[in-house]
């Protein structure tokens, strides 16, 4: 069609099943349905994008009319966009150990209820368990006759325990989400753990704020990699000039032992068999041996920024793709956990994550641990709660002096541009020197 340089269509339909149990009461449980498509047309001046609910696949004049509408929108754009070349291809979705669709909702509800009941404790005043199962059928086509389709199922649960004593309220929160199939069986231990943490936090102290040595557990160190490095390496931010990493390729910002990767192709919660613009997914070494090595790209940012590979475009159903992380992690090193605590000597051990946020242009990030322990003479001592860390991207990474040999990944969701996508973050235990800890404790 005249005026159209490229188009693609991503059509996703599927269903979401949820169960919400609050203090033994099934508040709601059931299935909802969705059908969403996004069509992007690239004209000489930029993108025209149509988001269509209840899309029915069509050809010929009907499809041409859709392309024309998108093209009309593109008339108001002002930038000549060039798409970089990228390899196409799709990975197989790993088979599920047990398909959640083969388990009836009554059984799911009963299993979730067991996890919820496991969080009972005399000091626990509230237990809330949620199960979610999302099945997406994705179909992709573009003007270069690439065509892919796949089905993904993500399912998992959260358990929250709230403990209360004399007006002091604390919480313990555990979650497990997976692409590998139904995972509600034999999980009562996570209910027990949520309750134990909530109750233990009633007696926890507050952390003293200031600079100190910190040992981060794999989950929190993963969030650190995600916030401190991942976002700032996204090609769209680099392109806009909104990242401190712009123009810093080759600059050393960490020790030789630090390598940070994003890989959408590994079978973790952020897995995509193909990216949202039909590009084959690929591993990107963002930081290699402490040096800024490559950025995350879609085809547009690859051509305008360079340095890296496309294949990092991701989207919620019916939304235009954005450059996103998928499975982000700090590579394992060779230190044992014992060596890390010994080297720390005196400091703080931080566990779990309540999330984080970054201002990539300013290069400042913040993230929060669920709880921690003071470290004295290499040993964990008193439990502490409500501990945040903040830092500057270009200087803080030098503080990672040891990386453990025990990397694990944790599932989660990441928000950007109003879209939330599944991700996983991970790392080994790490030792972070000169960590800026925010807590309400004073000397």
């Amino acid at each position, binding site marked *: 069609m005249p005026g159209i340089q490229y188009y693609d269509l991503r059509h996703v339909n599927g269903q979401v099943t949820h*169960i919400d149990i*609050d*203090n*033994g*009461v*099934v*508040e*709601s*449980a*059931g*299935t*909802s*349905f*969705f059908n*969403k498509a996004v069509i992007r047309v690239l004209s000489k001046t*930029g993108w*025209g*994008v*149509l*988001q269509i609910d209840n899309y029915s696949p069509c050809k010929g004049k009907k499809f041409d009319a859709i392309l024309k*509408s998108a093209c009309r*929108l593109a008339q*108001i*754009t*002002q*930038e000549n966009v060039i798409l970089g070349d990228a390899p196409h291809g799709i990975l197989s979705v790993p088979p599920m150990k047990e398909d959640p669709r083969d388990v009836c*909702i009554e059984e799911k509800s009963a299993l979730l209820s067991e996890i919820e009941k496991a969080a009972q404790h005399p000091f626990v*005043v509230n237990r*809330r368990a949620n199960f979610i199962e999302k099945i997406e059928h994705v179909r992709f086509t573009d003007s270069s006759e690439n065509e892919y389709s796949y089905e993904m199922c993500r399912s998992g649960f959260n358990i929250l325990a*709230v403990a*209360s004593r004399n007006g*002091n309220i*604390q*919480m313990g929160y555990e979650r497990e989400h997976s692409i590998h199939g139904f995972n509600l069986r034999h999980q009562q231990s996570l209910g027990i753990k949520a309750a134990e943490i909530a109750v233990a936090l009633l007696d926890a102290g*507050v952390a003293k*704020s200031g*600079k100190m040595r910190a040992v981060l557990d794999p989950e929190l160190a993963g969030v650190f990699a995600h916030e401190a490095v991942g976002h700032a390496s996204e090609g769209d931010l680099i*392109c*806009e*000039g*909104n990242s401190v990493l712009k123009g810093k390729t080759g600059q050393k910002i960490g020790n030789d032992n630090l390598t940070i990767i994003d890989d959408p192709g590994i079978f973790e919660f952020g897995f995509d068999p193909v990216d949202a613009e039909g590009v084959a997914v690929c591993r990107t070494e963002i930081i290699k041996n402490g040096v800024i090595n490559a950025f995350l790209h879609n085809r547009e940012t690859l051509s305008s920024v360079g340095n890296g590979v496309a294949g990092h475009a991701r989207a919620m159903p019916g939304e*235009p793709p954005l450059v996103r992380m998928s499975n982000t992690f700090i590579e394992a090193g060779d230190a044992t956990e014992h060596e890390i605590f010994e080297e720390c000597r005196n400091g703080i051990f931080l566990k779990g994550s*309540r*999330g*984080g*946020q*970054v*201002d990539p*242009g*300013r290069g*400042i*990030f*913040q993230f*929060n641990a669920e709880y921690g322990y003071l470290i004295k003479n290499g040993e964990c001592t008193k439990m502490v709660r*409500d501990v*945040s860390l*903040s830092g*500057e991207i270009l200087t803080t990474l030098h503080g990672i002096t040891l990386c453990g040999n025990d990397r694990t990944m944790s599932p989660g969701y990441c928000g950007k541009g109003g879209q939330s996508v599944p991700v996983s973050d991970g790392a080994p235990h790490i030792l972070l020197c000169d960590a800026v800890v*925010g807590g*309400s404790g004073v000397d």
Partner: protein
Amino acid sequence: MRWWAAVAWIDQLLCEAQKTVDEAEVFFVKATSVSAELKQKKVNLATSSEDYGLGIRTIHKGRIGSSSTNNPGQWRECLSAAIASGKLATPHEWKGLPGPVHLSRTPLSFDASIRIEPQVDIDLIEKMLEGAEEHPAEVTAGSASLSFATVTLANSKGVRYTDKYTGVSLSLEAIHGQSTGYEFDHSPFMDKVDPVSVGERATFFAVESDNGKEIATGEYDILLSPLAYGELLGNVFVPALSGRNVHAGRSRLAQSLGETVTDPQISMYDDPLLKKASGSVRWDAEGTPTRRVDFIREGILKTFAYDLKTAYRFGKTSTASAIRGGFGGLPSIGHHNFVVDGKRDEVADERVVYIHNVVGAHTANPMSGEFSVELSNAFWMEGGEFDVPLRSAMLSGNVFDMHQNISGLSKESRAIGSMILPSIKINKQRIIGK
């Protein structure tokens, strides 16, 4: 064709539902929007969307079932899924969906002059860029978006409400050296947004925050802008006012009815009938007619927010606080226009640390209220003037305790999402320098 004739299938749905269940409710949204996005100073992407959301609830012998779809043509499957879902839910005391009452049909959050057209977005963007020229910062990104939605609520008690909503939203991001600025505006009414000011403020904060100085760790009197205050209030304090959280043991305010929970100069209320405000509605997401709800009056906690389900279960009355998250979402307890009010004053005469925004407020502990967040666009301020910018520091404290130490509310308020907030001055808050 009148709107109601166009959704005749809703009557059919309710009729079908009542063959199986005691009561049924339909919530249907149809929305269109167009938006344009900037990459630096050029429009790179224009989007148009048409969204549908259908949410069905069924109630049978105290069991509430629900389902949703974005395909209204699929209502029969959706209804079956809702009825099946109800069989799993735990039964509870239920005194019925609300019946119809006569309500004004004049929409509260609708501007008939707004055209949902890409060129209008472009005009707004040009005005933002004109404002941005005031200060020598680089624009990195921005957007303008226009929307129109029709919302329909119908139930088996005879409620047939429908209302129209419009929306304009703007945002601009800028950078100067390694200092960033961000500003936004939103309203149902075109004449209530100020695109030139959005552009000007974004580049102002980027330029003014450059060359920030360090601050020593210690206690300071601070002035939180409506934006920074809204982050902490919305993530911690507002959820603690939800009746569901109160009765579930997830609210620190649960045992404090009738007690002083904030400084006596503070009042907090939800006013769903405010003129020209973003969240104004005449009926809530379950069809209960809305009214003002006074949560905190001069420091004293007066009530919590309830929807029908929570009210029936705990012997309370709905405060018409039901809202829906997204298209076709289930009703849950929220607010419409959450206002923090009280005696207004000059709050920036004396030297304070002004905090325009914070990074990481969602990581605060929603149960205990403890938080430690990074500051964004913070300055020393004196005589109402921005003085020295602060490069990097954290603010830590407790959102509930902080409200006991409020020493002033600014004369101006600002809409931040569905909250309308002043800047608040708080004495002796802990700042952690680097």
